């Protein structure tokens, strides 16, 4: 064990970074795929159906208990993946070929890049809590916003390159919608950073520091998560997150009722599936950011930080176990948040486009500004 660790830390920094990045992508990609299956199952259960539960690899069918996995659609997921990989990938004759093929590739870049600056958990080494993160930069959240805002280009490109009217309308909607909601989203997190950047502390936009401010023990002031202190911020961020990830009720770019399939009408097979993996990646990262900002990150309960739990379990001295515990708790929160995303999707009808714009500009944005002003004053008074 330790020799492997030594060997690993002996590798050049660049190689280590590449390995870590690859590892995260190798986790994120199947996780996004699993989300697609979760979506199908959750929609099925909400609609009183069993969902996909038939597929099983014939050479595994004899194993007792395999039917549990089969009923959860695990093999269906593999079959879907195989289908998307091997089925014919049509490129319609009227499209702008270069950009048409570029669009799904572009969609993957922000989806897989944002995760680099999101802490995925924390571990305790020598009594100190350290983040598990690919790139620990002090601009943290700003980088997430910056890179994820590039996600709109894949939709714009896809719609424009498809050279057909419904995809085009979808991409026009996407470009307006995403820019609109980005404003409210950014404004809604400002109170959080106003609070954690108290006078006299070093300035930071790092998500790890945000969680540290929610890691109080017992009934301390900082043991309550920010969702309780700043419910309006959390709410605005949540709504904007739905809009930014193109989820129902804000999935204007897709909007299959009025736009056939929206920006991906002309896409099929593997290219189509890339769009969807990207969408789910955005969802995962977005949920992660929400959990870090407002739901205490890897702290299991308000007032019960990770370090205390590790102490109780008696594993505080083992960095690997504490790391796994931290990642597990965080992943659990993200998973339940993704369930919430899907639950909302299969509950609400889609807004009309004018309603989306109204909510974005006339309701959410003024609310976000008022919220910011209120918290700026409140924080100024408290931290004086």
């Amino acid at each position, binding site marked *: 064990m330790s020799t492997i660790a030594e060997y690993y830390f002996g590798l050049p920094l660049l190689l280590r970074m590449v390995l870590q990045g690859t590892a995260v992508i190798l986790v994120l990609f199947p996780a996004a795929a699993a989300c697609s299956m979760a979506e199908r199952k959750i929609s099925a259960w*909400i609609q*009183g159906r*069993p969902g996909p539960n038939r597929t099983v690899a014939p050479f595994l069918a004899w194993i007792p208990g395999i039917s549990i996995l089969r009923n959860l659609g695990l093999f269906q997921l593999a079959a879907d993946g195989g289908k998307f990989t091997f089925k014919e990938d049509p490129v319609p004759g009227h499209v702008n070929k270069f950009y048409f093929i570029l669009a799904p590739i572009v969609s993957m870049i922000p989806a897989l890049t944002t995760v680099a600056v999101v802490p995925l958990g924390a571990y305790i080494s020598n009594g100190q809590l350290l983040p598990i993160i690919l790139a620990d930069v002090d601009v943290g959240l700003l980088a997430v916003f910056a890179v994820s805002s590039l996600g709109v280009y894949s939709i714009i490109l896809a719609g424009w390159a498809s050279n057909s009217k419904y995809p085009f309308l979808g991409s026009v909607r996407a470009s307006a919608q995403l820019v609109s909601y980005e404003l409210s989203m950014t404004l809604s997190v400002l109170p959080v950073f106003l609070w954690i950047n108290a006078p006299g502390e070093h300035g930071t936009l790092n998500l790890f520091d945000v969680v540290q401010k929610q890691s109080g023990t017992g009934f301390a002031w900082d043991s309550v998560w920010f969702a309780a202190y700043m419910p309006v911020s959390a709410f605005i961020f949540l709504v904007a997150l739905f809009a930014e990830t193109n989820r129902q009720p804000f999935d204007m770019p897709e909007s299959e009722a009025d736009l056939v399939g929206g920006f991906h009408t002309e896409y099929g097979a593997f290219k189509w599936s890339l769009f969807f993996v990207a969408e789910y990646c955005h969802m995962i990262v977005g949920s992660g950011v929400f959990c870090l900002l407002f739901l205490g990150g890897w702290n299991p309960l308000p007032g019960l930080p990770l370090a205390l739990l590790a102490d109780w379990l008696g594993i505080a001295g083992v960095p690997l176990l504490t790391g796994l515990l931290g990642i597990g708790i965080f992943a659990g929160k993200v998973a339940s948040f993704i369930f919430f995303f899907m*639950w*909302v999707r*299969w*509950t*609400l009808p889609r807004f009309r486009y004018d309603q989306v714009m109204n909510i974005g500009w006339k309701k959410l944005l003024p609310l976000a500004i008022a919220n910011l002003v209120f918290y700026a004053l409140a924080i100024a008074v408290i931290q004086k």
Partner: protein
Amino acid sequence: MAVITVERKPLTFAERTYLPQIAGGLKTTLKHFFAPNDTLEYPEQRPAIPPGYRGVPTLVYDPHGREKCVSCQLCEFVCPPKAIRITPGEIPAADASAHVEKRPQEFEIDMLRCIYCGLCQEVCPEEAIWLQNQYSTTGYTRADFVNNKQKLYELGGTLPDPHLKWDKKLAAEQHGNAH
């Protein structure tokens, strides 16, 4: 014609935020999330067929194993889509039910034409043709969908009919009082 103008109440603030409605919707879907499934997993679980169901038309035997059909061709005549084609045949004198005189030599129902109206069953004087519970017809060719006599009896089976009309007729005839 009195027109009643319904006064549309302006939305309350809570309604305009959408939030109470969204919460209500989420509650409903969550209830359904945990409720048992409404679906029937078809090939393993079959639906309960109500009495009087009109499935695939079939031919039936009587409890003694005699074909009930006497090939009177009424069903062929009444069939609106002309799905039935009967080739009548004579019952040889050596047969136990030779007194019935006729039975179908061939009896074909084209299930691609059949509209499951049940007129054949309605019109049959012998109660020989029945629309039973069979509802799933499959095949690879058009010919697969033409049920011949053998298939029709396979699907139909025996009708537990206690009247045994033709046996009574035979007995009456043998006792000399035909009517």
